[in-house]
């Protein structure tokens, strides 16, 4: 093991970090893909109810090989299980939970996030792409808090946090907190404020990888995460 502080978190460590900010008793919707990892790292002693858009509250972990039932799937169409206390409901009720402000937190992925918390995560606007939106726009405006879990930069190094989104929006001013592989950033009335940063990076390093102005230079702390493979 190296003594050099890590300059970025693994995806599982980001998921762990998001999980620490989910309170006991919260009703939570996890977006398809990376956000699904968050369910693995809820701290002991917190009872969280996971919601799935297709009509489930009280979703449990992945089924064992002999427990798979394709009538019991999550929004990503993957087989899941139910916890005691879980319930099923139809789609209009499921989205009443989302749009009616009953879901405490949703965790979504992002293509881009703007300085004022605009979220773009449904379309790159490419002319040959087939448009598909699913429940992203409903979650973005309906959940009480919107957490975004994302790599800080694209595979080619471009910042995903920008002054103005170039991609079509999912929702304007909807993001509350961004959890990236190098920082935890709150969207506030005064703009983007770094709450925590990877221990191996300076505030300026984070700013240099971000295409929007960041605050929090004097107040941010290092992210404390356990070793997770």
């Amino acid at each position, binding site marked *: 093991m190296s003594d050099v502080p890590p300059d970025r978190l693994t995806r599982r460590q980001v998921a762990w970090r998001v999980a620490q900010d989910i309170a006991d008793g919260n009703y939570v919707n996890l977006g398809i893909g990376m956000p699904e990892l968050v369910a693995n790292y809820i701290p002991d002693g917190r009872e969280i109810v996971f919601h799935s858009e297709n009509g489930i509250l009280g979703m449990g972990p992945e089924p064992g090989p002999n427990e798979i039932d394709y009538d019991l*799937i999550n929004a990503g169409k993957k087989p899941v299980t139910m916890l005691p206390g879980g319930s099923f409901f139809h789609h*209009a009720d499921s989205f009443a939970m989302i749009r009616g402000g009953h879901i405490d937190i949703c965790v979504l992925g992002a293509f881009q996030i703007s300085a004022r918390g605009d979220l773009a995560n449904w379309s790159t606007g490419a002319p040959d792409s087939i448009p598909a939106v699913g429940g992203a726009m409903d979650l973005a405006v309906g959940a009480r808090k919107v957490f975004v879990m994302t790599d800080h930069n694209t595979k080619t190094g471009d910042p995903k946090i920008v002054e103005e989104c170039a991609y079509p929006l999912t929702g304007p001013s909807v993001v509350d907190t961004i959890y990236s592989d190098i920082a935890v950033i709150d969207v506030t009335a005064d703009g983007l404020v770094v709450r925590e940063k990877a221990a191996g990076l300076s505030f300026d390093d984070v700013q240099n990888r971000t295409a929007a102005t960041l605050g929090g230079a004097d107040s941010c702390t290092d992210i404390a995460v356990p070793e997770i493979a």
Partner: protein
Amino acid sequence: MIDKTVESLREAVSVIGDGAIIHISGFGESGNPTELAHALIDQGARDLTLVNNNAGNGHVGLAALLESGQVRKMICSFPRSSHSVVFETMYRERRIELDVVPQGTLAERIRAAGAGIGGFYTRTTIGTPLAEGKERRIYNGQEYVLEDPLPADFALVKADFADRWGNLTFRLSARNFGPIMCMAADTTIVQARKIVPLGDIPPEHVVTPGIFVDRLVEVPNPMSEREMIENDVHYTPGGAT
């Protein structure tokens, strides 16, 4: 005496005509009325508009119905998936129209149609390209967009238990769009895994009351779309009974 049951899938879908708007239950590969979709292929109604959350998987059920060339337009929230090969090909070849609707707006438009609501305002899509050209209104300082109800001429729905009055239950998360689609169609056609004697479904377990159901056919061992996709099954027209 009320008896909504019919003897065959063929009889169940016989009333569907060209140009119909049809709600089809299901989310991904769960809750799809695969056998009714196949019967509709055999029946041959054309120029259809279909409403589903997705746009079919593999080459069975809804996807097979698209592949048959009977469908003019698909209204859905998420037409892309790892198994939606038929739709993607047809869309790129401009052989099918697409109307993408956010999932919650889709569900609420269907519910509104079933409940006699003439439209509703929602915050979903505000600030996005999908709100362009739509009427706006401010409530409590926040902007909302007007959405219309989305009724159907027919609904094809998969249920679990049913009785001759049309009371329905649904299996696990296969419920998804079933109950609201039953409400929203002029004629609701249901395939149920088991039709039981009246009174066998305890009233407090009824999910969709029979008032929303018109025609009912028993399909005892419904196909698993997931299994058919994994085995690359292609529906052969003429296979429905």
